[in-house]
């Protein structure tokens, strides 16, 4: 590996360094990265998989014909036939992508817009959600990604919006007539969009804004909840007018006249353009690509660009690559558990990992894909990833996996993965390792390898 900048390009902006990567990056790491910005076509590995609509339609149709038990069976089958194969294909894509900037961005935005398999109704369609609402838009406009995400049946269900009724809507009145004082509104989606997806918790909204936004979003649902004919069992966005609260709504001081589905769209667009959103996203991006404590001047620069370009994520990505601070300390960040596993597989050069070397270790680390404990997603600082117990699990797994890498020489592995940033002490103890596999394990276990 010829330089620390190569390491940064491959680890900070990619998903790890393996055999041949040094030559691919060449002498201009920033240029190599910048050339990856612009389009994110569907990778061949992910082409065979079904749409969320198809997956959810299948489950809904089973329920409509056979009730709850049929639905549970259909969900189980979809986890086996749709979810798991795509999860592994996705891992293969992370491990084998030669230019992995796009993959890192998919993971970043997927975590920003977290959903979880804990919500069983939509679990099977989660990889499809990422493939449909996030991956195609990592170089698009943020407003478009926000809209695609919030309208997706997976996010709508994860944050309970299909159950939200305007108190004065037809459905809401019906509910209240059955139980006096019943609350019909569910604020979850509106609150998390404001707090997590756009403005940020200090972004200047109040409880009234949450309620008004939630009222505007009433009726945002999908076909699967209607127990009608086959056509209504679909898994696509559906505006259910009888659930929608009539009348104007006022969010962040602006009045949105009654326009049904259009209110939510207008509010989302305004949120995407709000200065607090630019600040919130810039902070998260700079934390991800520079340091746990994001330098304020870098945040300000990215936030300004975000606003000036109307949230053009290609421009924002280029600006992140061009930040001098992103190249100052190649070891500033600690890899997440998932990043660590992917990096080991990339460095090991054995191609796509089987579930026993991907899902199983992530389970031990309590970090399986799409299982973040809350809508906030996974944390992005060393404190989240570097606990005593999790460090030892990482090392134990790496020691175990290092024994399965055949004849790969520990020194070669070290040169290819951390060469330019390796410290003398690490080199010494890799050289002195009693066996090749102990040497390989020492490379994986080293702080240099576990950082990015």
């Amino acid at each position, binding site marked *: 590996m010829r330089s620390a900048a190569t390491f940064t390009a491959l680890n900070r902006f990619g998903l790890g360094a393996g055999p041949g990567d040094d030559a691919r990056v060449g002498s201009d790491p920033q240029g190599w990265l910048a050339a990856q910005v612009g389009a994110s076509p569907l990778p061949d590995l992910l082409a065979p998989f079904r749409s969320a609509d198809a997956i959810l339609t299948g489950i809904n149709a089973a329920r409509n014909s056979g009730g709850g038990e049929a639905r549970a069976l259909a969900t189980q089958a979809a986890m086996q036939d749709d979810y798991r194969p795509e999860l592994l294909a996705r891992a293969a894509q992370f491990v084998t992508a030669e230019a992995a900037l796009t993959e890192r961005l998919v993971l970043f935005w997927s975590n920003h817009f977290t959903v979880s398999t804990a919500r069983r109704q939509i679990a099977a369609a989660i990889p499809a959600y990422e493939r449909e609402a996030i991956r195609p838009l990592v170089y698009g406009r943020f407003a478009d990604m926000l809209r695609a995400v919030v309208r997706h049946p997976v996010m709508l269900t994860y944050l309970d919006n299909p159950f939200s009724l305007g108190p004065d809507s037809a459905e809401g009145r019906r509910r209240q007539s059955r139980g006096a004082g019943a609350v019909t509104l569910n604020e979850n989606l509106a609150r998390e969009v404001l707090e997590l997806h756009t403005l940020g918790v200090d972004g200047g909204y109040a409880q009234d804004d949450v309620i008004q936004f939630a009222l505007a979003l009433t009726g945002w649902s999908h076909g699967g909840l209607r127990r009608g004919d086959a056509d209504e069992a679909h898994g696509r966005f559906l505006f259910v007018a009888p659930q929608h609260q009539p009348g104007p709504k006022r969010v962040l001081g602006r009045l949105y006249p009654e326009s049904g589905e259009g209110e939510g769209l207008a509010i989302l667009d305004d949120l995407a353009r709000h200065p607090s959103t630019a600040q919130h996203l810039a902070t998260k991006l700079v934390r991800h690509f520079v340091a746990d404590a994001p330098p304020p001047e870098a945040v300000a620069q990215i936030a300004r660009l975000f606003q000036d370009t109307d949230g053009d994520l290609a421009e924002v990505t280029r600006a992140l690559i061009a930040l001098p601070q992103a190249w100052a300390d190649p070891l500033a960040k600690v890899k997440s558990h998932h990043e660590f596993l992917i990096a080991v597989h990339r460095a090991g050069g054995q191609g796509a990992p089987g579930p026993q070397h991907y899902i199983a270790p992530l389970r031990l680390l309590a970090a399986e894909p799409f299982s973040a404990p809350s809508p906030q997603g996974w944390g992005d600082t060393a404190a989240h990833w570097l606990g005593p*117990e999790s460090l030892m699990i990482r090392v134990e797994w790496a020691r175990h996996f290092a024994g399965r890498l055949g004849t790969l020489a520990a020194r070669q592995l070290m040169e290819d993965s951390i060469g330019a940033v390796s410290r003398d002490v690490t080199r010494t103890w890799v050289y002195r390792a009693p066996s090749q596999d102990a040497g390989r394990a020492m490379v994986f276990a080293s702080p240099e390898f576990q950082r990015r």
Partner: protein
Amino acid sequence: MQRRTLLAGSCAGLLATMTATRLAFAQAPTQNRFVFVFLRGALDGLHALVPYADADFRRLRPRLAQAPDSVLDLDGYFGLDAALAPLLPWFQAGELALLPAVATRYRERSHFDGQALLENGTASPSGARDGWLNRAILALNAGDRRLGLALGPSVPLILQGAAPVQSWSNEHLPDLDEGFLSRLGIVYRGDPAFDAAFRAAQGTPQPDLSGMAEGTDNFTFAARAAGDILAHDAGPRIAVMQIDGWDTHVNQTGRLTNQFARLSEGLLMLRQSLGAAWGQSVVLVASEFGRTVAENGAGGTDHGTGGLAMLAGGAVRGGRIVGDWPGLSDRALHEGRDLAAPNAIEALFKAVLIGHMGLSPALADSVVFPGSAGIAPLEGLLRA
């Protein structure tokens, strides 16, 4: 050998440089034990400690309120949800106290900020980057003995900080050999963050888990391990456990029935594995905030304010429902929707840290819960 234990005498040349292996089995500042159980996601306290005789409660929860005859009556007004039946004997024996209408100083409704406050011990989500239990451990013994134990693969914020803590999780990977561990210790020495995590991992006690059935709930597993490790004379004194799954916006009754069963089973296991140390133990169960008093349209409740804390253990003066009760009338509700929170949870934390663990009151007010001098410890919760 046990993977986390580096024995002196082997690899002596390397070990001479590894001061981390000096595992402090020094005298602990106290023989008392404290377990904090964090219910992440905002427990609906009213579903656990049910004001079943309250007309407002029944009015606001036409579908969600439990049938009065299913509730386990405690005092004619409050009762326990039936799924918490395993804990009823503790209450009757005076080993369980309940504190409803309790909250941190946080009055917004974000899980993440709410959890941050509960864990960082300040009045703001970004008020500290370490946890109040970690600061308490530092204050108790300057951190030279690892008093804290995190159950699970990661250390939660409440235990993060300058005092090294131990951790344990239920995983099965081959042990590392001593030589590899020794070399790794050297490689980590130049990186303070890795060095600290590695040192903290050394010597983590290995609990006896014999007899635990495959498929036992994770929380029960963790409770068994926590109790077993805490029961050792030389072991840690303060443990943190957590259970997710309390964010019941939808289908609350079914989900909480299941959650309460998990919680009860785990707490019973904790008591069993603590053995004789139960008599010197306080177990505090808390959540980041409560939920709306009225049910929502989906058989659930939304984020609220006043929650519920439970205090259990042989060292607790229980059998009582303590603190102020604001009631459920429209005028009593916080912002017209949430159970109000006249009781500060910091008052409970301070009572345990000062009265049970021996923390100085001055440090509790200034360092462990900065800016909380106006919140006095709750009196009378502990056996003399």
